[in-house]
């Protein structure tokens, strides 16, 4: 599988994501510059974390208009796999590829901490190999990560099993205390109805190196690679 990581000028998790895919997982990765229009035949595109164009206005508000996004949007609308992590998730919501919005954390503070989450839907390419019973410990790091959607949208998300992850405590209970940013219904990540566009606030690429004492994020990437093996096998 050929991965493409989009690089906006203010992306700052691009190197981490590329390092994981290329060095740890041995995958082919290309860098997709925000001013370009060529997706270089990638099979899976990732919008990494960061502050795309400074994000002084509202996270992701400008990025959706960038040159590369025209191609990314049409790629995804045609069923291509697209994952947005943190700022990437914010951009996907701004671009209307995923429903809802990411609001300022209620504390009005940036928060960086390990969060726990549980997989809610295992029938996607990013969650198929993740144990839904075991809470994953994955870092969050954002100022605008409070997921919000209207009651109607939430009903749709739940009815269609589009909630990928919810914040939980270490024992897997969905509590208020374990919700680091006040996200509605503890939602940490969602997908579209077509199950090819994914967004999540936590950073699985930061929990994928045994030297850092936590590999809980690896299973998300391994799910993607496993799906590829299944297709190719």
């Amino acid at each position, binding site marked *: 599988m050929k991965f493409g990581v989009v690089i906006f000028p*203010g992306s700052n998790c691009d190197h981490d994501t590329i390092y994981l895919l290329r060095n740890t997982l041995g995958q082919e990765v290309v860098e997709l510059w925000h001013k370009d229009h060529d997706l270089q035949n990638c099979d899976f595109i990732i919008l990494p974390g960061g502050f795309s164009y400074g994000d002084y206005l509202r996270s992701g508000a400008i990025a959706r208009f960038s040159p590369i996004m025209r191609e990314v949007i049409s790629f995804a609308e045609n069923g291509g796999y697209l994952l947005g992590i943190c700022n990437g998730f914010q951009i996907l919501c701004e671009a209307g590829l995923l429903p809802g919005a990411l609001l300022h954390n209620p504390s009005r503070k940036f928060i960086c901490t390990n969060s726990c989450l549980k997989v809610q839907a295992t029938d996607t390419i990013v969650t198929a190999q993740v144990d839904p019973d075991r809470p994953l410990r994955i870092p969050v790091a954002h100022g605008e990560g409070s997921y919000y959607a209207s009651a109607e949208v939430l009903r749709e998300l739940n009815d269609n099993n589009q909630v990928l992850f919810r914040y939980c405590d270490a024992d897997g209970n969905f509590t208020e205390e374990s919700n680091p940013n006040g996200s509605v219904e503890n939602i940490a990540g969602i997908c579209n109805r077509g199950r090819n566009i994914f967004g999540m606030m936590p950073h699985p690429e930061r929990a994928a190196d045994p030297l850092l004492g936590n590999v809980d994020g690896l299973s998300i990437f391994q799910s993607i690679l496993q799906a590829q093996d299944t297709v190719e096998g």
Partner: protein
Amino acid sequence: MEDQLTTLETAQKLGLLPEEFEKIKEILGRTPNFNELSIYSVMWSEHCSYKNSIIWLKTLPKDGPRMLAKAGEENAGMVDIGDGLACVFKIESHNHPSALEPYQGAATGVGGINRDIFTMGARPIAQLNSLRFGDPTLPRNQWLMRGVVKGIGDYGNAFGIPTVAGEVFFDDCFTVNPLVNAMSVGLVEHGKTASATSYGVGNPVYIVGSATGKDGIHGAAFASKDITEESAKDLPAVQVGDPFQEKLLLEATLEVIASGAVVGMQDMGAAGIICSNSEMSAKGEHGMDIHLDRVPVRQENMLPWEILLSESQERMLIVVEKGKEAVVEEIFEKWDLNCAIIGEVTEGDRLRYFMHGELVADVPADSLVLGGGAPVYQRSFKEPAYFKENKQFAIDQVEEPKDLKAVMLHLAGHPNIASKRWVYNQYDSTIGTVNMTTNAPADAGVTLVKGTERALAMTVDCNSRYVWADPQEGCAMAVAEAARNIVCAGGEPVAVTNCLNFGNPYNPEVYWQFVEAIKGMAKACEKFQTPVTGGNVSFYNQSSDEGPVFPTPTIGMLGVLDNRDTFTSLAFRQPGDLIYLIGESKNDIASSQYLYSWHKIRQSPAPFFDLDKEFDVQQVVKNLILENLIDSAHDVSDGGLYITLLESAMPRNLGFDISTDMSVRKDAFLFGESQSRIVVSVKSELQEQFLEFMANFDVEYSLLGTVNDGDLIIDGESFGEIEEVKDLYHNALHRILESETEAQA
């Protein structure tokens, strides 16, 4: 130029001394015009020239086998870490801007220190900071603290470099004048660095990055006759930071260095264009012609001296090899950054500035800079009376408390000791995927060096109370603690950067503190073989109400783990493990947090400290780690042994069962802060090997007890459970700072 000749009165308003004004006239052979006088006033300020400190700074050890760029040679120190890599690191203060405007003051401090790193070609990989505020329960201090922490976070998080360690300390003496010190650490391959120099007649001089505005122009503005009250209003005193521009500047700068087109480069921080021009030209022994009207500006009608002195952020000055202009311009175009040729390198040593073709200033570069013509002063100093008074203290004057548990809770919940989670959770510490302490807390920040087996350890340390009590020993202790933290985390101390925060140097008692601190730093750095690679001096930290702040020579230390497997956490691992104390318990509570805030005794000497013993203790622990005989190491510092044990127990919700030493008072044993002690834990099956190994060293050590599953037991008596104290320790600061918000909610 002649129509704007200056007078002594103007010079003094700009902060220059009469003899300095005379010296300028002598250098130029004429009376300077206002532009030139402004240039000298900023370049000869303490900030740029170190005129009141350099004599003493030169006594610090600066040589070592790993040194690649020594103190004073470049924008930051550079040391060899092996595998063809060099580490560039530096600490800097932003105290006064932060006192006025905490958010932007702190943010631009982070921006400035990172530019010092990447202007040398190194990519920043980790940041640290050292903060001091007044009583955190007071609203104004909370305002300062919220602003500073948010400023550091917003800038550093967007810039995208993890903050991996730091310290926060509270004392009333910092109420008006908080201290904000920021450190950055970067990596570069040997041979891919850039130097702050300028040569090659005809080479173009570029300014790149943000446009220049009237921000951060200091005293000059208020002394100029050309400035009306009305126009002074649009001169912000504090610079405004833009981390997005900084991120673009970082990437573009590293690309342009890699292109091979760069002759020399320096960021623009204090004193703006003039500082970069003069330091680079003096170093490269050439002159420069600069056309100020070609500098991209963000407001109209800027005067020559305003452009010269502006401290607008996120800018770099680059001297490019003639003929390679297109390469450079293409890179900055890619990153959508300003990139303008503003002049060229000339023969000789003159810096000549033009505005629309007219010469507006003409000065010799060398006359402006440290090591050149900048003045150097020897200030007088005098031992203050309090120093001897402190030594009158004896432990017998203090009654031992009956209720030890009350003291324990007081300390565990004291803002100086309790978790700084409220602060550090606002900093991105996991970006970069190098931080080894995210899931295994340690005494120092430890980061992987990707592509190698190595890791870096780093820490910032200074107990301002100790330094006030005894500047020489207190500063030696700051170095010792930094080294101890590196050693406990599994590293080898390598080099030091310092941030010297003191009061007014013209006050002989303040200057005595400075001189003594330098002496202490010098002897400790010699002992640990950690040369001082540079840093920053910040004088005038005081207010009329409270006098000078505690003298605070913050030590930023870098260490190397040749193999990352030696990384050692401070956390106890499992019940049943044995707890040993390496080092000696002393009947000493001097300058401890316990004495200061429980007994409210403010005057006592610094805690007991013996530099040679300290070194020996560190060597033992270093070897225990190399021999794989211990599972955790955590030094005894603020709050004493009890707090150390608590901090080792909390990460895994463990407890401890220990015995005190009959020969030492119980409060001294548990809460005293005598130096050179490290708590380690040993698996019971390794006890014999551990004891055999310890027999090789002439260092005191003792068995304290064992790790258990969550009870806090001392001499058979229970002092509660870990969960209870952990809640207090983790949330004390949060409760102080968020109580109002929660009450409203």
